[in-house]
């Protein structure tokens, strides 16, 4: 079990999340894909901290603490936006929320 195993797993997880974020029709599905991408990146950060960083520094893990914090804030605001859009337009389908199209 080396660093490469974890990096490959992280890449696969990120790819699944990216696919969801790019292709889902429902705003909430897109947000789930974004959370999967957050998890993949956090996994790679912790792997680098474990395999490459000098012991007793833990910068990678502290970075993940901030990453999780910002992800939680982002999830709260994004889901509030989804609810607000639903109230205004009765839909969370991104194909119908194209108000900025030229």
């Amino acid at each position, binding site marked *: 079990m080396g660093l490469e195993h*974890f990096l490959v797993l992280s890449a696969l997880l990120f790819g699944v999340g990216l696919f969801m974020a790019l*292709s889902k029709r429902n705003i909430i599905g897109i947000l789930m894909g974004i959370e999967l991408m957050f998890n993949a990146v956090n996994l790679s950060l912790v792997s680098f901290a474990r395999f490459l960083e000098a012991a007793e520094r833990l910068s990678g893990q502290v970075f993940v603490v901030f990453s999780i914090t910002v992800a939680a804030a982002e999830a709260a605001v994004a889901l*509030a936006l989804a609810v607000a859009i639903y109230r205004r337009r009765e839909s969370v389908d991104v194909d119908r929320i194209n108000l900025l199209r030229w």
Partner: protein
Amino acid sequence: MEDAGSVVAFWALAALTLGAAVVTAAVRDLVRAVVALVLSFLGVAGLFVLLSADFLGVAQVLIYAGAISVLIVFAIVLTPRAARDNAETAMLWPALAIAGALIGLVIAVALATDWGDGAREGFRETASAIGEALLNRYVLPFEVASVLLLAAMLGAIVLVRED
């Protein structure tokens, strides 16, 4: 990291994490997708513990598998008449192509790079070390994060307020 237990744990947790993520992307019902997403979060928490990041494993269970999943369920039940399905737009094939290309690129770089031997000892206990780092070296980001959380909370409340 080469003992049998770690190897078995890695492959089991990797299969759980990735399988649950694929189920999340594939299943048609959003509520089932959230359940699979929670499984994936728990798999990542197990991987954190395997990487000797005990504090982060617990934080992952609390924040992701607990709080963020509950938030997503709230958003699903608060948008009832919307399409409950988890279907794709017309961007299905371009999205698959982009995601596949990115996976291939990252894996190629990760396998081609020489990372050194990487055979270090794991961390013993990280909670106290992370706590000290947060209040010594990273005290400014720590305070900024608290302000960010306050702003996000206020913003979320203002966005969904009944006028």
